[in-house]
């Protein structure tokens, strides 16, 4: 770009006074825009202000004002401050223009906002439900929508505390199960919508007579498929063996993270974040802790910061090892590379178990620090891993796999994503950086103490599956470099600001905390109204948004490559579906 981009965030209210006003609510940032001007303004934000990256898009239900709000977070891939734009529509007719034509990365996020919050995006190419199923009853994240096992608006429930009487939720439900139906619903007359509509739409989109049998074939992969990394389903339209179109179908692990998160107290959400991306629970803790700390205006003490970075980088190593190992599985080297990777993973899990008490679901971070100090002798263990064992083992894996003929033949040039496509589709993490975009939040918007460490932002330039694999190896090495500096500099001292407390006070307002998780940018958008529970709790899941690029990567490839491409994106379904 020719003119230098200013480091200051632009003042939209000064630039476009007729369209945007600063958000007047206390504790809120960003600008309010009328839906009528949204498309014009967003186009200008992208083309004139250089905000080429739509980070996050989500809906919030402000039931007292009778409004549904959509919150957009924009960023520049060259770094610098973000830009928050909001637009509101009345609850009884929530129509907002879609920004998918401008930022294709909004496609899945808008579908999610439609599915869960009930906002209808005008101009969206396929506004279907994404996490629940077609025909589901209501929009769950609307504040007046109640789940079948609804007990109270917020925890702790009065029946449990202080009274201490637990009632089985099933006993209060007329069906004795976790279900509810609209009044007058007759199950005998119900015709499931099924997937026929989707199949027909796919055929029609590609100019095939939907009712005629042709050589174009629709194949379902998943949700129970050995190489879809969980309960992921793809609907693939094939011409012979070549992929013409692909639609990811998700929601098979949708376990209502956000609805449960709004009933929970702030601290109760911490263990739930572990279960988002379940191979990197410490990173998930990190993002949520940062978001809430921003709202509370506290900072953890030095030692806690170092411990946090140490845990986050160890987590990154685990996650990348698993990604590399399972890529081998997808290539057909069944379970041999995985066993090498899992061996190292077990050693890191031992450290996690020692510090937090649990192998996988660590629940270790707290607002203002970490739950407890490192036990004795654990630093020595980490040292021997970081200085001695892991570098050797990473070199081993590198030697076994990188020059392997099968690995190269099956991954080089497979699933290419160009830099432009990656930015447009809001890809993040290794998927973005393997396409040649050096965007790493640890550098672009340093959080915690990442500005103190020396490390390189790894990039690769071809954007194919092989580069994504190589990039993960590079990143493991950089993580080891950061860990060496952490181990060198870690100070003594307290690990918690103030007293550990069960019920924290969070001032009203909103905040967006983000970290560079192993899979990409993991963001938490939280809204507080001063009560003990979050008013809105939204996760910006990197795996979910990276999936937007899957169709672009797969078109023109052979069906056998889909599995490899999916493996190279490295999704975790707990995070995709939440």
């Amino acid at each position, binding site marked *: 770009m020719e003119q230098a981009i200013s480091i200051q965030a632009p003042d939209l209210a000064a630039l476009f006074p007729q369209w945007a006003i600063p958000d007047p609510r206390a504790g809120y940032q960003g600008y309010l825009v009328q839906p009528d001007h949204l498309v014009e303004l967003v186009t200008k934000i992208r083309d004139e202000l250089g905000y080429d990256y739509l980070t996050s898009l989500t809906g919030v239900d402000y039931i007292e004002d009778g409004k549904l709000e959509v919150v957009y977070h924009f960023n520049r891939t060259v770094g610098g401050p973000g830009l928050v734009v909001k637009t509101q529509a009345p609850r009884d007719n929530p129509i907002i223009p879609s920004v998918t034509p401008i930022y294709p990365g909004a496609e899945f996020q808008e579908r999610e906002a439609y599915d869960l919050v009930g906002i209808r995006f005008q101009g969206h190419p396929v506004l279907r439900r994404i996490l629940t199923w077609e025909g589901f009853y209501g929009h*769950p994240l609307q504040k007046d929508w109640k789940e079948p096992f609804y007990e109270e608006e917020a925890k702790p429930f009065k029946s449990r505390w202080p009274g201490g009487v637990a009632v089985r939720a099933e006993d209060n439900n007329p069906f004795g199960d976790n279900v509810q*139906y609209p009044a007058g619903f007759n199950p005998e007359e119900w015709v499931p919508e099924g997937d026929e509509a989707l199949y027909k739409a796919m055929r029609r989109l590609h100019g095939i007579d939907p009712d005629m049998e042709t050589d174009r074939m629709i194949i379902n992969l998943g949700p129970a498929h050995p190489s879809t990394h969980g309960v992921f389903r793809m609907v693939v339209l094939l011409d012979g063996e070549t992929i013409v179109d692909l639609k990811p179908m998700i*929601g098979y692990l949708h*376990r209502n993270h956000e609805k449960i998160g709004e009933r929970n107290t702030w601290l109760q959400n911490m263990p739930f974040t572990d279960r988002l991306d379940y191979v990197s629970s410490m990173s998930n803790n990190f993002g949520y802790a940062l978001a809430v700390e921003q709202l509370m205006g506290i900072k953890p003490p030095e030692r806690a910061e170092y411990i946090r970075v140490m845990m986050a980088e160890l987590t990154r190593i685990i996650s990348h090892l698993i990604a590399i190992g399972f890529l081998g599985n997808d290539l057909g080297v069944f379970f041999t590379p995985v066993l090498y990777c899992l061996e190292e993973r*077990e050693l890191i899990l031992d450290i996690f178990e020692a510090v937090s008490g649990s192998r996988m679901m660590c629940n270790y971070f707290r607002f203002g620090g970490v739950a407890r100090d490192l036990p004795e002798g654990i630093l020595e263990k980490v040292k021997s891993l970081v200085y001695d064992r892991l570098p050797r083992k990473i070199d081993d894996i590198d030697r076994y796999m990188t020059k392997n003929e099968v690995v190269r033949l099956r991954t080089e040039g497979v699933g290419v994503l160009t830099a432009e496509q990656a930015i447009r589709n809001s890809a993040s993490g290794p998927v973005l950086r393997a396409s040649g975009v050096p965007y790493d939040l640890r550098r672009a918007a340093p959080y915690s103490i990442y500005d103190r460490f020396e490390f390189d932002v790894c990039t690769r330039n071809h954007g194919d599956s092989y580069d994504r694999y190589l990039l993960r190896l590079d990143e493991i090495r950089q993580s080891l470099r950061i860990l060496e500096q952490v181990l060198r500099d870690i100070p003594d001292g307290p690990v918690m600001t103030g007293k550990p407390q069960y019920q924290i006070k969070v001032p009203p307002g909103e905040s967006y905390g983000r970290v560079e998780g192993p899979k990409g940018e993991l963001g938490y958008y939280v809204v507080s109204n001063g009560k003990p529970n979050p008013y809105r709790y939204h996760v910006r899941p990197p795996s979910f948004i990276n999936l937007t690029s899957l169709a672009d990567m797969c078109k023109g490839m052979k069906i056998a490559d889909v599995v490899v491409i999916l493996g190279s994106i490295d999704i975790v379904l707990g995070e995709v579906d939440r």
Partner: protein
Amino acid sequence: MENPNINQPGYEIPPDIQNQVAVTTLDRVYNWCRRNSVWPMMFGLACCAIEMIGMAASRFDSGRFGMEVMRPSPRQADVMIVSGTVTKKMIPQIVRLYNQMGEPKYVVAMGACASGGGPFKEGYTVVAGVDRFIPVDVYIPGCPPTPQALLNGLIAIQKKIDNEPIKGSRWYSKEPALEIPVPILGPDLIDPRKIGLIKEVCMQKAASSASDSLPDEKDQSQSSAGSQAG
């Protein structure tokens, strides 16, 4: 694996053929073979699946018990490890997979979610335990259970196999296996076995709230508008 009871048929073996001839019962030797090649279905649902892989990996090595052969096809599997949260969108698939497994078949509910909904029980698309639809043999507590706990659960399956007589087992009788009806996705999950109850309750609700049914009607209209937009 060592089975101290395998050649103790319960009657005396003449001293001159002891240590040369093994005498056992058909049940024991047959079950001994079965218990040492329990093939799990390779089918992961959520977080627990990672620990299931950890169990098969080198440190815990389920191969020691003859369980390392993970089969992606239900037709070749003996035990289904339901490893994670069962959602309403997924339960039709799980029931279908269970129906496709050949008998004898066993089900392990791994972790809190599969056993009873776990931390996500209150969620609107979570099935509160897989045993609402398919029969479960072993429940393993934990969130997620450690690989050791999972191995313990699978050893419990082995013990169960040890005590199954060929004569009395249902799957060697002439009656065909009963298929479990596959749930349907409606406005919410519809269990085909409960269709009568659902109809009754919904009609009652419609009748009783005919006068003050505004919120319900609104929800319904929203829902139908949503599906039209889709």
